[in-house]
């Protein structure tokens, strides 16, 4: 069986597909979230050093992962859009940016809530915290640049270039732990080495990460549908859609 991947690269065909996918991803997100939260708050054992306060890890670490992953994915979409001149890729990049910024903010806020009881300070100028903050700035810069250019084509391409330039920063974040190892604990999960935490904790964290993934996909698809309608409002298929379903987006 041969699938024509390019079929869904046009907004016209992708719009209904995205509409069909959103409920599924939203459902999965909710399911993983419930399971993840149950495991992390009811089943996972209390940490013998940090007590109950460590449980914020179940939100903090997945959010930090997502903040970095979304940036890379966004840059990949942007690069694809720049290279293939595909409208939809650029729209995906634009749709991902706010979610990424929110996860970055979430990671920073939960991190500082966690840092207060553990390190005794809301904020420490540690390399990882700082690079996460820089990542937030990069997201904000991307969004600011895109929104301040009126011509959407130019906005897409300028934003794509900026995202590609900024993606240099993501590996710096990841390796900064090794480079300037200071106060922040090293990452608890290493490829190759056995995880240094209880299996249930790991499971809870992974479930939360999956929930965040699904949430991101669902929200990005919703947002990209809005962007598609807005950008292509003069196209025939949008007009037909509005005639068929005047009640609005569905």
């Amino acid at each position, binding site marked *: 069986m041969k699938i024509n991947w390019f079929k869904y690269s046009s907004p016209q065909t992708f719009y209904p597909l995205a509409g069909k996918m959103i409920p599924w991803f939203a459902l999965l997100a909710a399911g993983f979230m419930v399971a993840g939260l149950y495991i992390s708050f009811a089943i996972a054992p209390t940490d013998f050093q940090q007590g109950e306060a460590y449980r914020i890890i179940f939100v903090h670490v997945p959010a930090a992962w997502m903040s970095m992953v979304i940036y890379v994915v966004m840059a990949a979409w942007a690069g694809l859009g720049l290279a293939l001149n595909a409208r939809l890729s650029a729209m995906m990049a634009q749709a991902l940016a706010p979610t990424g910024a929110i996860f970055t903010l979430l990671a920073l806020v939960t991190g500082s809530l966690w840092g207060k009881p553990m390190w005794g300070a809301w904020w420490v100028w540690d390399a990882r915290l700082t690079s996460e903050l820089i990542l937030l700035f*990069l997201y904000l810069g991307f969004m600011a640049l895109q929104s301040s250019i009126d011509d959407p084509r130019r906005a897409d391409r300028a934003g794509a*270039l900026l995202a590609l*330039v900024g993606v240099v920063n993501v590996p710096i974040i990841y390796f900064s732990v090794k480079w300037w190892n200071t106060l922040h604990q090293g990452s608890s999960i290493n490829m190759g080495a056995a995880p240094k935490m209880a299996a249930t904790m790991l499971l809870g964290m992974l479930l939360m990460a999956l929930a965040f993934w699904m949430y991101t996909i669902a929200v990005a698809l919703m947002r990209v549908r809005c962007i598609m309608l807005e950008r292509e409002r003069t196209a025939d298929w949008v007009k037909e859609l509005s005639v068929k379903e005047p009640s609005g987006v569905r």
Partner: protein
Amino acid sequence: MLRRDLLLALRRRSDVATTLFFFLIVSSLFPLGIGPEAAVLSSIAPGVLWVAALLAGMISLSRLFAADFADGSLEQMLLAPQPLALLVLAKILAHWIVCGLPVVLLAPLIGLQYALPNDALLVLVLSLLLGTPALSLIGAIGAALTLGVRGSGLLVALLVLPLYIPVLIFGAGAVAASQHGMSAQAHLSLLAACSLLSLVLAPLATAAALRISVE
């Protein structure tokens, strides 16, 4: 190209002077705000001087392409047979000679005001010399992206300052290291690496950004 830009800058000397005065004023504001104790000043000097240099470099970025964009010569450059990245590199070099180099030369004087010891002064100049080209190079990408965009001055700050941070860390780190009697070589090497990396990548990215902005 380099000669043309330098000549243009020479004709409008006040532009160069503004950057320099900005650097001077910003770095003189800190002692006024913090107080004249030499110990405090010399401990904050590396960071303050580097941040001031960063801002001075950034303020002048908007002029990098704006004039050429306004009078149409930028479009001629895009159409020129020479590779655009090379032309861009010449423009960036001119920008650094006009805006970066004076700051480097002025820095030891301000360092003296901040009661920096002699060897730290030397490292300060060296680190600025190695780091400011990276500032001009990275800044050029931002300047090219925001060309002709409304509110471009503020936008450039938002885009470029996060990318400046590694340069700031290594630059200020080098001076601080030498103040504490350690070798600044590691920081200086990393700084040079930043500059070299941006020397390779930034002209290409800037050229691409210019093509996007001028179409």
